[in-house]
């Protein structure tokens, strides 16, 4: 008896094997392609927001301009200049009366429609206005300059004036509060569960509960924050405090889980060494376990915070998407955060806000990637094989 391989059958199997392998690689490639497409799309939309149109115009300070800034400008130009600038003129005169009667030529912020026109995008300028802008550009009196205002201004109803500074400060406050509450609580919980907890029913419930908490939809944390912190405890709505508290409850399980993993990775020989020298359990934790697991704990914390900085839904529920143009003065004053700012801009109908949304997204992504990068770097650098 001899074995005769069925070549047709073998070939089919080999083909099937090759196809399966190709599928698996193409799945990853597909995900990678999406990532590339996504970043290319966001960056290309956002690119133009980092430039802002400016016009060089004659500003003549006079009595009428004290009432309305428009009178300081040439009539046909005044429609092209941002209302954000013309509104400033009366104040400038009030501050310095000497200005009346003088005039000066300077670069001022252009209206968003002019901005869009100069960038070659659809706009609502009239034909003769376009002609005027073209003429000014030919004379070198219209230009696109780097948009510093985007980084130092707060929100505004005028796209050319809107910036992310206020939201960035708000995000910073919220993150600070999140860290202040979730880090100590999370590390304490993890230490207790890993080093001190008896093995009983209650501890099992706590463990299952932490895993559950990590998988509860974020919007439900918003409902919790609304009814506990705002309605029951009376924390002011839209404040960095209520946002931070809400997010810290969300970040807590992330920190607990990663801290537990970091503590678990430390071999028992180290604990036994400390105990053998006469240390109490707490001393063993303080002097050996915690310092050695600190890199892991910090990595987990940074990842948790990176997630918190992009979180929007629960913050919307606790009122952080109102129109708040100024940076908060403290943790109880109303504030907005970067993702909420992005959401507000994205739902605005004015076209110039679209590029600003993308630019805000780039800033948010940059912060988030930076945090994740630091976390990955720390993990690689301090990774110890015991």
């Amino acid at each position: 008896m001899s074995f005769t391989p069925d070549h047709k059958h073998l070939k089919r199997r080999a083909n099937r094997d090759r196809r399966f392998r190709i599928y698996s690689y193409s799945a990853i490639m597909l995900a990678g392609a999406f990532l590339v497409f996504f970043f290319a799309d966001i960056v290309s939309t956002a690119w133009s927001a980092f430039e802002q149109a400016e016009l060089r115009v004659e500003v003549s300070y006079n009595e009428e301009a004290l009432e309305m800034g428009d009178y300081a400008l040439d009539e046909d130009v005044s429609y092209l200049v941002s209302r954000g600038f013309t509104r400033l003129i009366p104040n400038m005169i009030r501050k310095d009366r000497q200005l009346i009667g003088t005039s000066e030529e300077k670069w001022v912020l252009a209206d968003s429609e002019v901005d869009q026109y100069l960038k070659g995008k659809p706009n609502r300028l009239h034909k003769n206005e376009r002609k005027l802008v073209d003429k000014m550009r030919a004379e070198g009196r219209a230009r696109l300059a780097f948009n510093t205002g985007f980084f130092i201004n707060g929100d505004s109803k005028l796209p050319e004036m809107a910036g992310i500074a206020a939201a960035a400060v708000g995000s910073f406050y919220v993150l600070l509060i999140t860290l202040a509450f979730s880090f100590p609580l999370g590390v304490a919980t993890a230490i207790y569960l890993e080093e001190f907890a008896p093995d009983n029913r209650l501890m099992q419930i706590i463990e299952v509960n932490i895993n559950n908490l990590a998988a509860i939809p974020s919007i439900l944390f918003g409902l919790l924050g609304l009814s506990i912190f705002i309605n029951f405890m009376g924390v002011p709505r839209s404040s960095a405090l209520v946002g931070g508290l809400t997010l810290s409850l969300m970040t807590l399980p992330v920190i607990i889980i990663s801290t537990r993993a970091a503590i678990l990775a430390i071999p028992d020989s180290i604990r036994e060494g400390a105990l053998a020298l006469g240390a109490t359990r707490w001393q063993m934790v303080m002097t050996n376990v915690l310092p050695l697991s600190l890199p892991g704990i910090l990595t987990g914390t940074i990842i948790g915070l990176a997630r918190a900085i992009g979180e929007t839904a629960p913050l919307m529920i606790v009122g952080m998407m109102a129109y708040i143009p100024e940076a908060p003065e403290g943790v109880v004053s109303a504030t907005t955060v970067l993702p909420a700012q992005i959401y507000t801009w994205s739902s605005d109908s004015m076209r110039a806000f679209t590029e600003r949304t993308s630019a805000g997204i780039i800033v948010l992504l940059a912060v988030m990637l930076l945090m994740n990068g630091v976390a990955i770097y720390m993990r690689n650098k301090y990774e110890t094989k015991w």
Partner: protein
Amino acid sequence: MTTGTVLLYLFCGLVPLSVVAYFLATKRTYSVKFEGETFHSTPGSYGWYAIVCTLSPALLASFVAAVLQLTGLVEVPATALLAVILTLAAAGLWLGVLTVKPSLKARSLVEGLIVKMLFVASLVSIFTTIGIVLSVTFEAMKFFDVVNIWDFVTGTTWNPDEAVAGRDVQGVFGSIPLFAGTFMITAIAMVVAVPIGLFSAICMSEYASPAFRKVAKPALEILAGIPTVVYGFFAAITVSPLVVHAAEYFGLQADYTNALSPGLVMGVMIIPLISSLSDDVISSVPNSLREGSLAMGAYRSESIKSVVLPAALPGIVSAFLLAVSRAVGETMIVVMAAGLRANLTWNPLEGMTTVTVRIVDAFTGDQAFDSPETLSAFGLGLVLLVVTLLLNILSLVVIRRFRQQYE
């Protein structure tokens, strides 16, 4: 006096008092009075003991005051509270330092207290869960007082705008279209995420070289880290028009707020969740199983399909369930791209709305807080909570019951 200044004064009062307590207590362990006697603990422990004695009455007092304030029983004037707290702290300091003597087991006391505090910290997660359940349930009860729960579960029209002042609220809060929308978008997301995520995991754990893996894994993690508001913007601005144009190309009519685009983008969002969880379980299948299969003459793909994947199945199923619960609860993508119209349809090219969209919408309108529309958000939240909790528990049960133990 504002809360801020009170806190500042407290800080300025309590911190120096603690330092003094520490200093006095440690100093006392060196004093001539106890010459020749051996102290039970190190001087530092006595210092901490004195700090605990100083702070605990002050903290207790401020806690009581906070509770009184919250329940609205007594309005404690800030200045009086400040004075009481500082007096208590000073008294505690005096008492603490005075009780320092060689036989006092300061270290055991302090460490016992620390462990208790750690225990209390670990209860916070439980309280959070209880808080979510209770707050959502209580508000949902108020909603179900107004709206018949049966109508809510079985009604097919969701039109809360009809429920304005004085009108009859029956019949406008039927949640079935919202669940249909949620289900539709979740299903689309799963159709995208499960094959891509699973094949990516297979690729990374079975085929990829270490170098390729080192690039691919963090790249997938980037996908997981992108904020959902960004995905939502991307779905609304870029994907929706693409879907509409594609539909036109095939001669179909698509809304700009169709269910397909948030579903697709949500699928991409979920890929890393499925791939990294599946990668973990696939990698933990022992090599002896693969080698046994390969030694029998099976191709790589055949051994993956008939040995590795079945062995990893419980983990994969649990990853799938977690992904479903993530998709059901996802908010920003659907808020920005799915539309607001409750629409009961099988056509993913039409606009549909989901549970989470209506929750957000209820809070961003100008409704009074106790209006039926706002309260309906809590009713929906309750259902969302129950569904996600069930999915989470199910995934835990699957992994616990069916996980195979390999030696």
